[in-house]
């Protein structure tokens, strides 16, 4: 799983039926220092996240599918939690 920031929302009317009702969010993966790391991704929301929030993303199909309560949905990334704090003792 990775940490990311929600940066935007995506609207898609014509999509696979297993994605109907799923909220699609643009997310920017982050380093532990909260700086952007790599390209943006599109994730389905399984945690009720909103733009600007820091979230936990699962990058695996079966788990992502489980996060939106669907079996075998064609997804590869899902938001599974909203991050309150990350503690990294040095």
């Amino acid at each position, binding site marked *: 799983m990775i940490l990311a920031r*929600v*940066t*935007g*929302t*995506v*609207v*898609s*009317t*014509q*999509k*696979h039926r*297993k*994605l109907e009702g799923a909220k*699609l969010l*643009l997310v920017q993966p982050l380093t532990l220092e909260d700086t952007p790391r790599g*390209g*943006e*991704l*599109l*994730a*389905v929301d399984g945690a009720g996240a909103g*733009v*600007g929030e820091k979230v936990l993303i699962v990058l695996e*199909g079966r788990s*992502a*599918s489980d996060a939106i309560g669907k079996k*075998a*949905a*064609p*997804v*590869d*990334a899902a938001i599974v939690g909203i991050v309150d704090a990350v503690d990294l003792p040095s």
Partner: protein
Amino acid sequence: MQLGRVVGTVVLNNQNDTLTGVALLLVQPISSTREPVGRVIVAADSVGAGVGEHVFFVRGKEASFPFYPTEVPADAGIVGIVDHWDIG
């Protein structure tokens, strides 16, 4: 998943039987500012996307799920056509 723009089509002959009837499209992954990101990929299409449209696609085994029970040998698949997106 990632945002992308459909830039072309691919036609096969002598294809693997399980790819019969599957539309293959060339997709340029893009950022939310519409800049190209990385290389163009070939993706299996299950939503009827066309050249010039903005789409989102899934990578990995999940790309074949829309064609179930046929086990399509694909590693990228278009699963939605994007109407628009908003950056907060």
